[in-house]
Structures are given as C-alpha cells and as structure tokens.
C-alpha cells in the first residue's frame, strides 16, 4: 500500500523549473531514499510534500488523500513529520521542551483552560509529559532531558530532531540529510538508529541523503533526481549499476 504518492509534480520559480514530472511512490513500512547531486531539487521536493511550497502543477497524496496546498501544520497533523537539512531545533529550550512542543498539535484544551490549569488540561499535560519521557527513554535521550538543545553534541542534536518529529505521532518520517556532517562511525550508528525506529514505531521513512554507504545499506528503494528530473528508480543494486546515475552522481562520488 502506498503511503505517499507524488503525482506528476512540477515546481517552478519564475523561469527556473526546480522539479519537473516528479512521480514517487513510497510504500508503507519501507525506507525510501531520494538522492541526487547538489541543486537537483531534492529539498524542493520535500518542501512541496510538507506544504512549504505549493506546486505549480501536480498533486501529493497521503494515504490516498490529497494534501497539496494544505499548510505545513495541517500536513503534520495528518501524519507527516520532517527534519531539516540544517538542524532547526528550538535552540534555547530544553530537550524535554522540544519534545513537548511537538505534542502541542494534539492539545484539545484552549488557551484559557490551559492558563487556568483546568483539570482536563492538567490531564493532557501529564499525559504529554509521560509520553515524551517514554519516547526519550526509547531513543536513549532521557538522561539529557533537561539540557538546553543547543548545548548538545552534533550527533545528539540530529537524534533529537528525529525524536521531535516522532513526538508528533507521525507515521511518515521525512529526513532531510540526516547524516550531513557526520563521520563514518556516527553515520553507521545513525543507520542502525533509523532502522530501529522504523521497526519500533511502525514508520515509513522517506529521506534525502548524500552518504552512499548509508543509502545503499538501508534503502528498500531509491529515487535519483538530477536537474529536477527523475533519472532512475529501483533497489540499491539497480541504482549502483545504472549508467545514467553513475554519470550524474555516483561516478563523482566515488572519485571523491
């Protein structure tokens, strides 16, 4: 069953066509990667999916429901959460607060009953805290729950950003270069981490990544984007041996 379907999406900024004829199908429970050289339009594709951009034409479907042109917060409420290429944590807040904020979308009490600490709000708040602690515990971040987010080491900030996305109760996780700036060891850990959370939280993962080790190791399916066009799709082996991909991307990567 397809969780996310991108149907013929085109995104044009003035004279520049950032993404053209994009068709992507992400199946439930799979880890799917979107790769391509810098400027290929990968992040633009993410921004179209999450509602940051309204596509020039084409549609995006989440569980067969059209989500094109909805605002980002509504799309998150429907079950897509994302991380960012340059970490965007709430830097001056604690780890716990970062997670609690991601729970806010489920709060039913209005601001007045929240400020007046009505019993139903207190119940919600307690539930949120318990849930967040459980999540942090599962991800091995409970020990640092009172640390300020910006004081964490880089790898943990990346982890926290993924944890925050999970806290929204999303079932589809979009990771924008989760291993950016990581050394090989950290990348390996991250690979395990992503696989574990996929299994534990019953997730579907769609990610942009440059680290070929990570992508080849973890992905069930890979899409390759170049100059806004899909040039290949398939399993890791298909992609490795695809001459167009090697020409556009992997050849360069292997030299480097």
């Amino acid at each position, binding site marked *: 069953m397809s969780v996310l379907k991108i149907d013929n999406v085109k995104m044009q900024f003035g004279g520049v066509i950032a993404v053209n004829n994009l068709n992507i199908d992400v199946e439930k429970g799979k880890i799917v990667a979107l790769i391509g050289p810098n400027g290929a339009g990968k992040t633009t594709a993410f921004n179209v999916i999450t509602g940051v951009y309204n596509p020039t034409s084409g549609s995006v479907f989440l569980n067969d429901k059209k989500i094109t042109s909805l605002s980002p917060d509504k799309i998150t409420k429907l079950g897509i959460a994302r991380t960012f290429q340059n970490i965007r944590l709430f830097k001056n807040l604690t780890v716990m607060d970062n997670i609690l904020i991601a729970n806010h979308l489920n709060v039913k009490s209005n601001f007045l009953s929240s*400020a007046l*600490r009505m019993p139903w709000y207190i119940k919600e708040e307690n539930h949120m805290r318990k849930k967040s602690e459980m999540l942090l515990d599962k991800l091995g971040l409970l020990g640092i729950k009172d640390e300020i987010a910006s004081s964490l080491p880089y790898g943990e900030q990346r982890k926290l950003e993924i944890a925050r996305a999970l806290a929204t109760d999303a079932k589809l996780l979009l990771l924008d270069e989760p291993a950016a700036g990581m050394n090989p060891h950290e990348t390996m850990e991250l690979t395990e981490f992503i696989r574990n959370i996929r299994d534990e939280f019953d997730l579907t993962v769609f990610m942009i990544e440059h680290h070929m080790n990570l992508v080849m190791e973890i992905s069930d399916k890979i899409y390759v984007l170049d100059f806004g066009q899909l040039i290949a799709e398939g399993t890791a082996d298909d992609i490795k041996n695809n001459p167009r991909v090697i020409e556009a991307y992997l050849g360069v990567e292997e030299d480097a």
Partner: protein
Amino acid sequence: MMINNNRKLMRRSLTVLIIIAFASIIILLDTKTIGDNYVRRILNLGAIYAIVSVSMNLVNGFTGLFSLGQAGFMAIGAFTVAVFTVPVELREAIFYIVPQNPLVANIELPFFVALILGGLLAALVSILIGMPVLRLKSDYLAIATLGFSEIIRIIFTNMKTITNGALGINRIPGIPTMWITFGVAIVSIIFIVLLINSSYGRAFKAIREDDIAAEAMGINLFKHKVISFAIGAFFAGIGGGLLASLLGTVDPKQFYFTMTYNFLLIIVLGGMGSVSGTIIGSFVVTAGLEYLRIFDEPLTVLGVNIPIFRAGFRMVIFSFLLMILVLFFRQGIMGQKELSWDMIEGWFKRRKGLPKKGKVDKGGTI
C-alpha cells in the same frame, strides 16, 4: 537528602516571609502610615507599567513578534474606562463643546466592568489588526503596529462626541486603594506566567525560536500569533484603564508612540523573555523617570545657568541609557531567565567564593 529538605523548607519560608513583608509594606503605604502620595503614585504607576510591560513581553519576548502597538491598546482601555465610569451628571460639564453621543451619554458602568470591557475591546481591535498585520515579520510588523497605534490616537482625537477629542475626559473616579492596581497587576501577571508555562506558552516560544520548525511541528502559526497578540492587547487595555483611573484624566496626547518606548525600554532592561526581569524593570524605570526629573529643572551652579538642564533633558538621559543598554547589556537584567532561589544563592556563592579562595591559598603556605 536531609540537607536538601532543610534547604527547601528554608527557601519556602523565606518566600512566604518576603510575600508577607511585601504585603505589609503595601498595607502600611495604603493606610498612609508610611510614605507620601508621591511614593504611592509612583508605586501605583509601577504596578500598571508592570502589567503592560509583562503583556508586551509575552508578545515580543516570548512569541518573538516585534510589536509596538502597546500605546494604542492602552488608549482603548483608558478611554473605555473614562467614557463609562465618569458619573452621568458630570458629563455635560465635561463635554461642554460638543455634547456626548446619546448612545453612551447615559451609560455608567462599575469600574471593574468598564476595565474588563476596555481590555476586551483592545483585544477585539488587536484581532482585527492582527489578521492582516501578523503575516508580516520583524521590522515590518513593528512599523505596521506603530502606525496602527498612531491611527487609534488620531481616531480618538476626532471622535469628539465620544472621547471629547483633544480636550480629553477628566473627573474620572480615582482608585480608592493601592490594592486595585497591585491586585490587578498580581492577577494579570500570574495569568500570563501560567499561560507561558502551559503548552500554549511552549508553542509561543517555539515560534520565537524558529517559526519554520514550529510550523513543521504542527503549530498553526497564525492562530498562535493572534492569541498571543490579543492577550497582549487585552492586558495593555487593562493597564490603560487603570492608568485612566489613577490619573483621573485622559487625553489622546498621552498615548503618543513615545509611550510604547517606555515599555520597550522596560522589557529590554529587564530581559526579553523574563517576567521577573520585566517586573523589576517596570519599577526601576517608573521610579527612574520620576526621579530623573531633576534634569528637567533649570540648574544653576555658582551663579552660572547650565544651559542643557531644561524640560525634556530627562528624556535625553533616558535615551542615552537605552543606547548604552543595547550596546553593552543586550541581555538586560535577567536575560531569558527568571529570578529563583538557585540564582540568588549563586550570586552569594560567587561573592563569598572569591575571598575564600585567597584564604585557602594562604593556608597552603603555612
């Protein structure tokens, strides 16, 4: 464990003591046992400024919206209280050029009803303004809200049949006890603190920290910005209403945009994103503005008249202080922190710590 419990107990009793001391001072002042009217006036003013500044900090410091419309919202609250609390029989004498509009001329409301109504009207207007304006960011939002505040003032200057135009409204029934200003200030600030520490408050902070990430976490930016903006306006309206009653007179000139700068100074001085800092800042600035009046008086030293000491020089000093503050102490008194026992203990430890170190060194040589 024992030590920890003892410390907790001590802190708690100290807190209670401070509250009792604070309450007793207000009671003594209020019953005119100590202090004079001047001190009482300054403290009342400080309490009102605290309400408005904390509400402005909710919008600017906690939600990260650079809004400068505070004076406009205060004007709405102030005129609501003025229009509805002046006794009906006095109105003919006040509105002696243009008679008051018959729609409101015969309505007289109890003070607290008028006060709340003023707050609600300010909040309503803020929502109407917020809808287009809150889509703007940083400087643009500041300019738009500043402009709005001036528009309100000009509208009030011209609504002669309701606000008495530039003449303003006087003989507003005064505040009988300091507990009204301090009571309203305490309740308002507690409400805002509770809000800030609720899930909504966290959402506000998320918007301040990173609005793109906040939206990606499912927070409806527009809704939350409007809520924060409207609550800020509500309490500014309440503050304006109290001010009208305290001064006994309102006219549109009081609500120039320069008034907003006082509050801006307070929250920058106290610390953007710190409620306790804002409260300290309110009283420091209110008292400062009053006691700096010596700079407004002509000064003669050894028979020579110092030319710069004249009306308005006080504000020059004030602006100068603001510049120093922004250049060298951008965090203000408290930064984003709140006053707590841990912090106070920290100060003492640091003070004691330095000489102790010296002693230890001496001990080492023996």
